[in-house]
């Protein structure tokens, strides 16, 4: 048996699907935020690696673990199908490994550690001169860079550290941000705990690039509602920082906001648009601009629901967000737009609605309409965060695409649980990501048969 490191109880294992001819995974290069994506184009079928040899007699005292050279014959997500050198066309002992792990090493790694390469038992009598065989097979072949392991380690390091203070959208009231502290980090996903959370609460999970995270002082700067201890409010107002403050250098531009207030100059309160419902990510809805904040942010409200008089249903989007759209986006992409509360799909029509209510649509020129060549295709498998319970990362499939949006379907679940996510969302990961970083992967839902 092959040794697995960081096994997690009840975590789903893709291996059973990987040999299915019809299984297609989104390539690692589709995920800009994924570990070692910057060197992934240099990892190729045909490459030689050193890997543990599990086809051997029980470990000797001299060499407790045995290694041999293998060739990469297929790559799916972070998984590679390997064949030990010497097996020729015999695929019976092929095996899957994670490339983003400590399971594979560049050729030469064993020698630097004084470990001899030992041929698998099945083929040990196939050649009389293994030295000559390896010399011929390896000369001129490609292998991983000698610093591969450190590249993997570095790419998994978070910019954040436990104990840092930051401002995070309140999971129980999305119109406000709360002061929170980083409690745990796995695979650049942060588990944060709001300052007023009871100790037994498991906190809130999100990727460190999530637009729900902001630096200390963000709410004051942009004019967003903040819930924080008075001591925090006072010191932020006075410009006093503390050692544990997560400062702007740790965040992405969308998490910080822009100093260019002209970004929002075309947005006015009451203007209409289409937007992903932040509380139901399978729906694109009629929405209203409720407030224009500083630094390129707006507060919107989804018109599908009864208005919350306290503004608790407002949500902050940056104007460059891929989750807000001009009027007509759904029609253009043949998607069902969720109409305002008093309408049905049949009775709602943007032109009539705007003229009858005297509202104005936000100009289409103010939205981010750039569609990158993302590489995703319908049917591709991936690992995706269930944003309604973001502690969970689940087996998922690209069900549909619209512009730069992906409709992500959670395998085994009804379509109502689907999520529209941006192609550059940090909540989607390549097949094998969870295993690589040591995070539990939720498998497809298995519905028990009725008796």
């Amino acid at each position, binding site marked *: 048996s092959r040794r697995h490191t960081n096994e997690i109880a009840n975590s789903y294992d893709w291996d059973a699907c990987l040999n299915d001819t019809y299984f297609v995974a989104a390539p690692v*290069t589709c995920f*800009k935020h994924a570990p070692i*994506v*910057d*060197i*992934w*184009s*240099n*990892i190729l079928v045909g490459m*030689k690696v050193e890997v543990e040899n599990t086809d051997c007699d029980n470990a000797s005292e001299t060499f407790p673990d045995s290694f041999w050279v293998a060739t990469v014959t297929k790559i799916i997500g972070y998984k590679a199908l390997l064949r030990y050198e010497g097996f020729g066309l015999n695929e019976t002992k092929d095996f899957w490994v994670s490339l983003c792990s400590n399971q594979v090493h*560049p*050729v*030469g790694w*064993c*020698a*630097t550690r*004084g*470990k*001899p*390469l*030992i041929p698998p038992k099945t083929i040990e009598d196939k050649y009389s*001169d*293994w*030295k000559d065989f*390896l*010399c011929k097979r*390896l*000369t*001129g*072949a*490609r*292998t*991983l*860079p*000698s*610093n591969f392991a450190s*590249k993997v380690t570095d790419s998994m390091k978070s910019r954040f550290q436990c104990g840092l203070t930051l401002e995070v959208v309140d999971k129980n009231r999305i119109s406000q941000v709360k002061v929170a502290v980083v409690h745990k980090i796995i695979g650049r996903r942060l588990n944060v705990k709001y300052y007023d959370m009871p100790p037994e609460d498991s906190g809130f999970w999100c990727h460190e690039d999530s637009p729900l995270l902001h630096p200390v002082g963000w709410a004051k700067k942009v004019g967003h509602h903040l819930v924080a201890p008075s001591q925090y409010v006072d010191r932020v107002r006075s410009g006093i920082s503390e050692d544990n403050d997560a400062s702007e250098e740790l965040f992405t531009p969308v998490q910080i906001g822009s100093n260019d207030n002209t970004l929002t100059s075309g947005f006015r309160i009451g203007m209409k648009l289409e937007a992903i419902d932040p509380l139901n990510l399978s729906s694109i809805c009629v929405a209203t601009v409720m407030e224009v904040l500083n630094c390129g942010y707006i507060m919107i409200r989804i018109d599908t629901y009864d208005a919350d008089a306290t503004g608790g249903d407002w949500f902050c989007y940056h104007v460059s967000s891929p989750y807000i759209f001009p009027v007509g986006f759904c029609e253009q992409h043949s998607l069902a737009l969720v109409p305002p509360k008093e309408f049905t799909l049949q009775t709602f029509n943007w032109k009539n609605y705007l003229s009858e209510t005297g509202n104005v649509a936000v100009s289409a020129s103010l939205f981010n309409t750039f569609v990158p*060549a993302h590489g995703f295709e319908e049917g591709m498998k991936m690992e995706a965060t269930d944003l309604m319970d973001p502690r969970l990362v689940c087996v998922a499939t690209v069900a549909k695409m619209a512009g730069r949006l992906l409709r992500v379907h959670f395998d085994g679940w009804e379509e109502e649980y689907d999520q529209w996510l941006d192609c550059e969302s940090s909540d989607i990961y390549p097949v094998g990501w969870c295993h690589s970083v040591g995070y539990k992967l939720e498998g497809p839902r298995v519905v028990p048969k009725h008796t």
Partner: protein
Amino acid sequence: PMENKPRKWEQKQVQIKTMEGEFSVTMWASGASD
């Protein structure tokens, strides 16, 4: 874009150790100097 990033392949001498002895081969390694 990542797809357009030139691949840097460098020729390098790699040491191999077997039960019969050590030798070196010339291989191509990628991205070592990235």
